[in-house]
């Protein structure tokens, strides 16, 4: 009761102009980190999955690299990837914004994981569909575009989205290198004397506002997939 009344009395000051500005900016940063990292990661993951299954012998070295990349980055904690990108770019003397470093780290992880999810989607397409396309002289890319991707993406999208929702939560780690996203903003506000309960409750709602719509979309896609499983 005491806590509640003290929080209530703190609210007008907490939701002042500058704090709202800070929270708004942090919210947009988290959103931008999530969206740019996830979208670029998903595209790269798709490309990696396509490359990994390519039949051409000329692409063999590239296929190996793709596999190495996928296997490596799926096994490294996100924080380590982030530090790796941070220190490698520092060592190379590159002057890159912290935000960009965080986006690159998210991109790397998201690419590796979605590549694996999409690969599972490819494997879910019956071999008979690949064979039917092969005997009709469809090339690899035409088979993917016309037959396999419509099938594979439908089954890969819900798990891919579930994974990306998880990744949004991981963007909090970008605070470790000083990117001013939601978690970093929370830390800064508590250090300025606002009560942690109020600050983190606000941050929680803002994270929820980002990930909930995406999770809903995933569920909607899943339902649609269920309704037209054999299309």
């Amino acid at each position, binding site marked *: 009761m005491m806590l509640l009344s003290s929080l209530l009395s703190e609210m007008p000051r907490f939701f002042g102009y500058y704090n709202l500005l800070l929270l708004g900016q942090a919210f947009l940063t988290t959103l931008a980190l999530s969206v740019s990292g996830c979208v670029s990661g998903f595209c790269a993951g798709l490309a990696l999955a396509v490359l990994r299954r390519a039949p051409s012998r000329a692409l063999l070295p590239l296929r190996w690299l793709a596999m190495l990349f996928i296997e490596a980055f799926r096994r490294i904690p996100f924080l380590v990837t982030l530090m790796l990108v941070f220190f490698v770019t520092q060592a190379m003397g590159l002057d890159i914004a912290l935000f960009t470093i965080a986006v690159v780290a998210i991109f790397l992880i998201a690419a590796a994981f979605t590549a694996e999810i999409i690969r599972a989607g490819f494997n879910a397409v019956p071999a*008979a569909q690949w064979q039917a396309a092969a005997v009709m002289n469809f090339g690899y890319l035409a088979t993917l575009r*016309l*037959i396999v991707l*419509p099938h594979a993406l439908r089954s890969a999208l819900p798990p891919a989205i579930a994974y990306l929702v998880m990744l949004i939560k991981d963007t909090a780690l970008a605070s470790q290198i000083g990117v001013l996203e939601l978690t970093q903003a929370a830390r800064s506000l508590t250090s300025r004397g606002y009560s942690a309960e109020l600050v983190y409750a606000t941050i929680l709602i803002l994270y929820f506002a980002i990930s909930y719509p995406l999770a809903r979309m995933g569920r909607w896609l899943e339902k649609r997939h269920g309704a037209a499983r*054999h*299309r």
Partner: protein
Amino acid sequence: MAQLDIADLTAGYGGTPILRGVSLSVARGEVVSLIGRSGSGKSTLLRSVIGLTPPTGGSVALQGTPIDYASRRSLRWLRDRVAIVFQQFNLFQNLTALDNVAVAPVQVQKRPRGEVRDEAAALLGRVGLGDRLGAYPEQLSGGQQQRVAIARALALHPAVLLLDEVTSALDPELVGEVLDVIGDLAGDGITMLVVSHEMGFVREVSTRVAFMAEGRIAELAAPATLFAAPQDPRAQDFLARVVR
């Protein structure tokens, strides 16, 4: 010149030989049926000819041109001229009946879309599905799906059509409609190599029948001869069991 010339063909899966030297020459317009027990190599012969189970030895020539199964170009050339219909239909699940038939001519053979769609509709009409053009495979019965698959193969204008047990996955009451379509094609003079367990049908449509056993053609004769007086003891035994 034979349409299809198979000489001493061998093939297998993972070191297990299935075909142990098959030789067969199919003339233009001929319908040659392959019969025999399960595991005798009938389906493997068809799959080897089209390169799904690449031959390990022997040779295949189409219209006098030898096929090199290790060369993608040669395989492409072959598959431009030979089509196969599978036991399980293998229709593209994400496409309508019309698109299943039209997709390869448009996307692979690069023929004009309008012309192809008209032809696809006509072919589907011919197999009795003129009113189901927009249906997805899951909305069709097995017999209807198999007829779409036949129309899909015909749209490629194959020089040789391979039919791999096309009625084996169908409910008994749906077998007739598919066999009628094939009988119709045989009457049109399309060269066909047919694996079937429907002996009445084989007898009716084939110009010659090959009885296969243990990866070889044990006996090859006109249907009337083979069914009336088989020479090979295994053929005698097989026919005594399946023809009543």
